[in-house]
């Protein structure tokens, strides 16, 4: 069977020498091509771009929120640190017997300081007790000493036993102090 040969030839319609049919076909082709590119290339790209942009701005907003919170806490801690610098330093400082004797000189004459066993206090601190024997002229010296111990460069607690024994015009005083340090930074 012989396949009939189809001979197709575009009709040529020319207006002022311009091939109207060919140009119309090219126009239609370029329009369809544009639509296809928009549908399958540009539209998905715009979608991806918009999604990425939205994600970025939402993350940025969240980041700024966290950053502000961080700055707020950071400033608050700095203020807190500055306000309590003396306490923080005191808890890091090692107890110095000689310096303590010098501090107590205004109130009493310390004859002996005996270090006792240290123990952990509230998990984060180390408590080191010292047994002190001293001589005072009147109980007022002891009161003044206790009043002013908060200004000492260590955190010191005056604790029991507190023994007073009168001897001539003086009083023999035995008492315990506890020096507190932050754990690991003694």
């Amino acid at each position, binding site marked *: 069977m012989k396949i009939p040969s189809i001979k197709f030839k575009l009709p040529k319609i020319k207006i002022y020498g311009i091939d109207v049919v060919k140009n119309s076909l090219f126009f239609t082709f370029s329009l369809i091509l544009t639509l296809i590119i928009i549908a399958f290339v540009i539209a998905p790209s715009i979608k991806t771009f918009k999604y990425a942009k939205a994600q970025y701005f939402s993350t940025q907003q969240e980041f700024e929120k966290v950053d502000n919170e961080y700055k707020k806490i950071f400033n608050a801690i700095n203020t807190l640190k500055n306000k309590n610098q003396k306490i923080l330093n005191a808890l890091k400082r090692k107890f110095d017997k000689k310096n303590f004797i010098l501090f107590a000189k205004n109130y009493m004459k310390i004859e002996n300081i005996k270090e006792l066993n240290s123990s952990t206090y509230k998990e984060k601190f180390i408590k080191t007790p010292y047994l002190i024997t001293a001589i005072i002229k009147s109980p007022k010296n002891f009161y003044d000493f206790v009043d002013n111990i*908060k200004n000492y460069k260590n955190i010191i607690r005056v604790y029991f036993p507190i*023994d007073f024994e009168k001897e001539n015009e003086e009083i023999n005083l035995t008492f315990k102090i506890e020096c507190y340090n932050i754990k690991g930074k003694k």
Partner: protein
Amino acid sequence: MYSFTKPIKKPYFKEDTKLWLVFIFISTFLYVTFSLFLLIKAYFYSKNTNDLAKEEITLKEKIIKLQKEKENILLQKELYENITVKNSVIKDSVKNLLNLVPDPITLNKFLFSKNKLIIYGITPTKDVYNLLMLPPLESIFQSTKTEFIQLSNGWFKFKSINTLKSENENTFN
């Protein structure tokens, strides 16, 4: 046959066809370039998003650390304040005890421990001690025991042992 004009090569495309092809090529190129531009922008946006997310995680970790540090500072401050109060309480305890002692009675020695107070002193008579010294001691301590030894001058040497109710009710701690 001889021709006076030279043969001109027939162009593959006519002028208007060329124009259309160039137009289609350029427009397709521009569309693809625009898409690529958007994709590259999107890539940088998502890269920055990831960076920000990582920074955010780091900041959150830092915030947790700072909060722990803050708690730590507050704990240290609280310790200092507690100790200051406790020192003041101890001072007042000793002061109050010495203020309890009436004029006729002289204290020689006192041993102040966590739950116990032992007082050694001299009183002119037992009644003076029992009237002036004993009642305030009994109001503070649960048990009060006193021993007297008469001296050659008629006065009495006394030893008073005072014990608190229990460790939990210790007023001096």
